[in-house]
């Protein structure tokens, strides 16, 4: 029986790959592709009359497959269904790292899930507070309430927008350039950063259109996302490459960190590097870049 180590609330989550929890051939070794997280899906990927079968498949996968350092999350059914409570029992009993709350619209939704997670942790003798949560925002209401949602529980490590449902409720289609979700993405990012949690973009559904996928990933990074939901292993490498700091960014961050250490010793607060004025927030961001570069395995310096 596999016992997973205690999940880390903040860790590298560039890619979160969805897969149907009911398909043993998919989930038996999903970690080999190298996505940071996998999301075993009990919700939309599983037919209504197969929910129970999927829970069994999920539970035995969690208990028998060593996913190693790959984070294992489970997307549970929405709170408007009869399934979500049993889903939570299955996830907690199996020892998954966390739960993705589908169609989350309010702090009350998060608290309801949290309450059942705690009950399940007690029921199955799992360390209380071990199971993490993330919120999938799939409606205008969810986006409007993003801040209260991500601050509703200590277990919440982040939120993600779910484009499929969201676009339908906004009467828009997926557009080149992403204008149809620009405001929602922006608002969710603000809420997440304000709350100090991570923020993830929706999956890109058209697996064969690599060009548009890549444009979207590049935009995601420019907007400040931490990562992205994906639906195919083919999408992993580009996201990882795009979210990793570039050699130029790393070099600049290194320069900042080193110069700051020197300046601090001589008691100067604000100064210039490469002709640009810098102060403490620059230093903090530079440290973040170096840490991310290390996590992405692209840092080879000695800081």
């Amino acid at each position, binding site marked *: 029986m596999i016992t997973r180590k205690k999940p880390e609330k903040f860790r590298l989550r560039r890619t979160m790959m969805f897969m149907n929890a009911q398909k043993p051939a998919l989930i038996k*070794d999903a970690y*080999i*592709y190298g996505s940071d997280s996998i999301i075993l899906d009990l919700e939309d990927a599983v037919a209504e009359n197969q929910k129970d079968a999927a829970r069994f498949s999920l539970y035995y996968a969690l208990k028998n497959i060593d996913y190693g350092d790959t984070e294992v999350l489970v997307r549970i059914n929405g709170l408007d269904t009869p399934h979500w409570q049993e889903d939570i029992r299955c996830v907690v009993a199996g020892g998954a790292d966390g739960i993705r709350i589908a169609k989350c619209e309010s702090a009350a939704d998060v608290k309801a899930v949290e309450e059942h997670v705690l009950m399940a942790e007690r029921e199955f003798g799992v360390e209380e507070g071990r199971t993490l949560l993330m919120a999938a925002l799939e409606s205008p209401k969810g986006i409007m309430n993003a801040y209260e949602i991500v601050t509703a529980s200590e277990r919440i490590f982040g939120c993600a927008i779910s484009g499929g449902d969201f676009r339908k409720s906004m009467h828009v289609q997926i557009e080149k350039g992403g204008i149809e979700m620009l405001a929602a993405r922006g608002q969710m990012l603000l809420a997440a950063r304000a709350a100090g949690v991570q923020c993830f973009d929706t999956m890109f559904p058209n697996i064969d259109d690599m060009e548009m996928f890549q444009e979207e990933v590049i935009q995601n990074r420019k907007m400040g996302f931490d990562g992205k939901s994906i639906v*195919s*292993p*083919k999408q992993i*490498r580009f996201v990882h490459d795009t979210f990793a700091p570039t050699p130029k960014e790393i070099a600049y961050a290194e320069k900042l960190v080193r110069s700051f250490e020197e300046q601090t010793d001589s008691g100067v607060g604000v100064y210039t590097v490469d002709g640009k004025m810098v102060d403490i927030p620059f230093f903090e961001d530079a440290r973040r870049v170096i840490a991310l570069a290390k996590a992405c*395995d692209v840092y080879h310096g000695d800081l």
Partner: protein
Amino acid sequence: MKNAVNRDIPEMLLTNGKEVYQGKHYMDGKYIKKDSPRSCRHVKPQESKICASIQEACEKCGAHDGMTFSFHTEFREGDYVAAMVARVLVEDMGLKDITVAATSLGNAQSNIAEYIEQGKIIGVQTSGVRGKIGEVISAGKLMTPAIIRSHGGRPRAVEAGEVHIDIAFLASASSDCCGNAKGVGGKNNCGSMGFAIHDAYYADHTVIVTDTLVDFPNLPSSISCIDVDCVCVVDDIGDAAKISTKEARMTDNPRELMMAEQVADVIAATPYFKNGFSFQTGVGGPSLAVNRFLEDHMVNQGIKMGFALGGTSSAICKLQDKGLVEHILDTQDFDQGAIEHIFKHPGHHEISLSEYANAGNKGAYVNKLDYVVLSALEIDTAFNVNVITGSDGILRGAPGGHPDTAAGSKCCIIVTPLTRGRMATVCDKVVTVTTPGDCVDVLVTDYGVAVNPLRPDLIQCLEEAGIKHVTIEELRDKAYSLVGTPDTLTWEDEVVAIVEARDGTILDVVKKIKPFTVE
């Protein structure tokens, strides 16, 4: 007697100077006395060499009991000619004690399995056995052990006189009345005739079998009329649908793509990846997809491939059309795109199996190969590869150019999933060694990469490039943890096939299978 890959070779096979495998360069520098054909002189001018039937051609060439007949398999599963000729020899002419020397044998020749069972065909020398023929040989029904040779081992054995071909029946897409023949210009085209060319030089008699007779002279030709005794025109030499697909399909399987990408990354991390490098890959699953990922590395680094070798598909032809490949040295064509490309691009050349891979000549093209990407049915912790016997011990595969390219190349990469169904691909001991471990350098699986400890230089390259790798034992353990450790196979004592190393020494033997019984 144990050989260099630790296989016990029965002493009874070590006669007439036959030796056991002693390492990949054991025969280097040794001399060979070449065999020569006993050729019939055609002095008196003749209008045509066309015969009314295959039987007439056989009679003209003096076909009789005990002879060795050869066929090539450029038409693969779509070939009609080998089966057609075998039927004439056995059923119409009543010949017996026949030896078949083919470049491969499979489902298209399954009547040969019947003739083996009837005792009419008593010897088989081939580079591959699939389907029913493999089953009857494994059941011990062939009178003498089959001899399995690589694509390079076959012309070596022919030149050494270890197999002397009495009559070569060479299917050709087009021919003129005197036997200038080629793999294009007909209704069933195969492109390169690389598998057939060498037989025409060494066989006592050569019969061209075609379904498209063209005006004399059919030039440029792959086989010259000066080596041809007879020409037979038949309705169809093959089934076009089974000869080749329109375009070898690039896999869309994420697992195969991931492995292909990893292979390309390994290649790009090694020092031979520079302008003018040479490369060969197969057409199956992840192997073919390597082309796609390699292209990215070539473009990024601004380098071109000097030559691509061996079996050819559209993928490599397209790279050549983009100016990324200088030369293609082509032994067989896997799809219509390659067949149409071969004689059109000035850098796309047809080469014979001897030029390709023969370890008995003065240096085949495989010796100039930087990289080869190959698959495997099994690979063991000594990096020995099996591509010939299934997990049940039955013959069902073909070494083809596997052992030759592995031995010749600077970097041989095996790409295979860690498990296939319930079978562990990485194992303690392969059922049959077809490519010795001293020729294999890197293993890429869906669960990780392992480098042969014989190549510390490559280990260092991977580490410098940040490519993670593990030991092959770790991969084996992972495989066994997933599918369980299989029981060892049990065999009868009778040897049903001899696996020859490319240099003519004995690499392994295949024994008669023991019928499975439930206790």
